[in-house]
C-alpha cells in the first residue's frame, strides 16, 4: 500500500538528511521504524505525510507511492484525504478546544451527521477515559490522555494507514503498554495499517510484524520483527542485550569503539 522508494530528503536545499530510504507497508500491516536519535525516522514520516515544506525540506530523489499513486508532491491536506493520518511527536492537540472538539476536527473531511456520533462512540470505546474528559480543555489533559486524544483524532479520519511518531514518548511504562495494546486492538478490529516510529525498540518489535532500522539517514537493516529481535546487532545496539536474557554490562563494553558499521 505504501511504498517509499529510495528517497532522498534535503533541507534548505543543501542539508542532506535522508539518503536512500526505502520501506514498504502492506495493507493492514504493522511496521516499526527504529533507530537512534537523529537517524531520520521522524523526517521519513514527515516526508510521507507531506510536512517537509514547513521546515523548508523537500524530497529531492526517489518516490513515495500510496495505493499506486505518487504522493511526494502533494500537500499535507491532500495526503490526509487519501487516508494517511500522522500523529506527530509531542502530542499535537488543539489546546484551547475541548477533547470532543479535538476528535470532531478529525472527522471533518469525511463524515456527517449520524456517522460522527458512531465514530465518537468507537473512539470512546477504545479510550473510555476520553469520554469522561470530553468537555475538558485539551491543553489541560495529562500527557497520556493527550496521546490518546491524538490517536483518537487520527482514528476519526478512518485512515488506511496511521503513522505514529513516538507514541510512548514521556509516558510511564504502564501507560506505554496501554497505548500499544490499544493500537494493537485498533489494528485488529479496524484493519488499519500502522507505521510506528519508536525509541522503545523492544516494545515496538513485540507489537509489529516487520521492522526497519535506520541510521544516519539510511535504512540499514530490515526484517520480520521476530527475527530483528533475535538479531545480535539489534539486540546489542537497540535492546541493550548481548547474550540471551542477560542485561548488558556497560563495564565490559567500550561502546564508542565497538559502534557497529552497517555499510
Amino acid at each position: 500500500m505504501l511504498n517509499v522508494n529510495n528517497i532522498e530528503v534535503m533541507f534548505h536545499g543543501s542539508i542532506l538528511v535522508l539518503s536512500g530510504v526505502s520501506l514498504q507497508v502492506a495493507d493492514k500491516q504493522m511496521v516499526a521504524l527504529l533507530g537512534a536519535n537523529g537517524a531520520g525516522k521522524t523526517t521519513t514520516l514527515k516526508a510521507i505525510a507531506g510536512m517537509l515544506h514547513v521546515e523548508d525540506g523537500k524530497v529531492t530523489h526517489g518516490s513515495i507511492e500510496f495505493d499506486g499513486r505518487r504522493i511526494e508532491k502533494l500537500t499535507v491536506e491532500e495526503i490526509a484525504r487519501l487516508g494517511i493520518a500522522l500523529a506527530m511527536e509531542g502530542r499535537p492537540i488543539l489546546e484551547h478546544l475541548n477533547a470532543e472538539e479535538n476528535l470532531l476536527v478529525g472527522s471533518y473531511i469525511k463524515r456527517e451527521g449520524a456517522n460522527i456520533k458512531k465514530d465518537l462512540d468507537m473512539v470512546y470505546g477504545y479510550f473510555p477515559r476520553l469520554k469522561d474528559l470530553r468537555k475538558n480543555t485539551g491543553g489541560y489533559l495529562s500527557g497520556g490522555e493527550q496521546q490518546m486524544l491524538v490517536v483518537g483524532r487520527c482514528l476519526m479520519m478512518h485512515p488506511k494507514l496511521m503513522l505514529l511518531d513516538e507514541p510512548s514518548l514521556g509516558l510511564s511504562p504502564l501507560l506505554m503498554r496501554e497505548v500499544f495494546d490499544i493500537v494493537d486492538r485498533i489494528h485488529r478490529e479496524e484493519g488499519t495499517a500502522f507505521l510506528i516510529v519508536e525509541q522503545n525498540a523492544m516494545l515496538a518489535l513485540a507489537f509489529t510484524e516487520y521492522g526497519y532500522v535506520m541510521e544516519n539517514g539510511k535504512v540499514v537493516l530490515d526484517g520480520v520483527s521476530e527475527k530483528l529481535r533475535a538479531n545480535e546487532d539489534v539486540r546489542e545496539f537497540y535492546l541493550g542485550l548481548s547474550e540471551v536474557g542477560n542485561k548488558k554490562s556497560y563495564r565490559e563494553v567500550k561502546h564508542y569503539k565497538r559502534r557497529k558499521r552497517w555499510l
Partner: protein
Amino acid sequence: MDKIISLIILGVMVGGIYSLIALGFVFIYKSSKILNLAHGQFLMFFAYVTYTLISQAHLPFVAAVIIVLVLSALVGVFVERFTIRPLMGQSILATIIMTFALGFIVEGIVILISKGYYASLPAFLPTGMWKLGAINISHQYLAILVLTLLLFAACMWFYQGSRAGLAMRAVAEDHITTASTGISVAQTFRLSWVIACLLAVISGLLLSSLYDVHIDLAGYGIAKGLPVILLGGLESMGGALVGGLIVGLAEMFGAGYIDPLVGGGFREVVPFILMVLILMVKPYGIFGLVKIERV
C-alpha cells in the same frame, strides 16, 4: 442623574458599532494572527461603492447593498489569494505591512475616483426619538445596537456551533496539525477574509448612516477598532463586544465630564488611554487567550 443615564445609554449604543468594527479584525486575527490594518479603508470603500450604486446607477438601497455584499465577498477572496497567501510562511509582520499598504491603495483609489467628497446615504434606519424625561433614545442608534447584537449572536453560533466554525477554531490553534486532519487551511483563511469583508460592509453602512460617507471613515474604523480589540483580547468575539461597550461608555463619559473642562477633544483620546492602562495589567487583553503551558 439624568445626565449619567443618558451617557450610559449613548455609550452602549456607540459601543455597539465599535464592537462590530472590531469583530472584523477578530475574524482574521483568530485564524491567521494577521492584524488587518486595511479594515478601516475597506469599510469606507464599501460605503462609497454603495453610495455610488445608489446615486449614479439609481439602484434601490436594498439592491445596492446586496450587490456590495457580493462584491465584498469577492474582494475578500481576491485579497486573500493575491496579497496574503503569497506571503504565507513569511514573517507575520510582512503580511501586516501588506495590509497596511493595501489600505492606502484602497484609500488612494477612492480619492482618485471620488475626489474626496462628502456624501450621505439615504436614511435606511428608523429616525425619531423617544423622550423619557430628559433622556433621549434615538431610534437610529437603537436599531444599530440591535443589529449589532444579532450579528454577534450569528457569528458566535457560526464559530461555536457549525462545522466551518470548528475548522476555523482548529486553524486558529495550529495550522500544521489542522492540515494533517485534511482541513484546508487556505480555504479557512479565505472564509475568514470573506466574513471580515462582509462585516466591513455592514459596519461601513452603519457608520455612514451616522457620519456621512467620507474618506475619514477609514481612519475612524482603525482608531475605534484597534483599541477595542486590544482591550477585549485579539482572539475573542466576546472581548470585541465587551471592549466595544467599554470604549463606548468611556468615550461618552469623557465627552460628558472631561471635555467641558479641557475644552473638547478628550473623547478621541479616552480609548487609547484606556487601552494603555489595560494592556499594562493584562497584556493579552481582557478575554485574550493565554497560552496553555503545563508544568
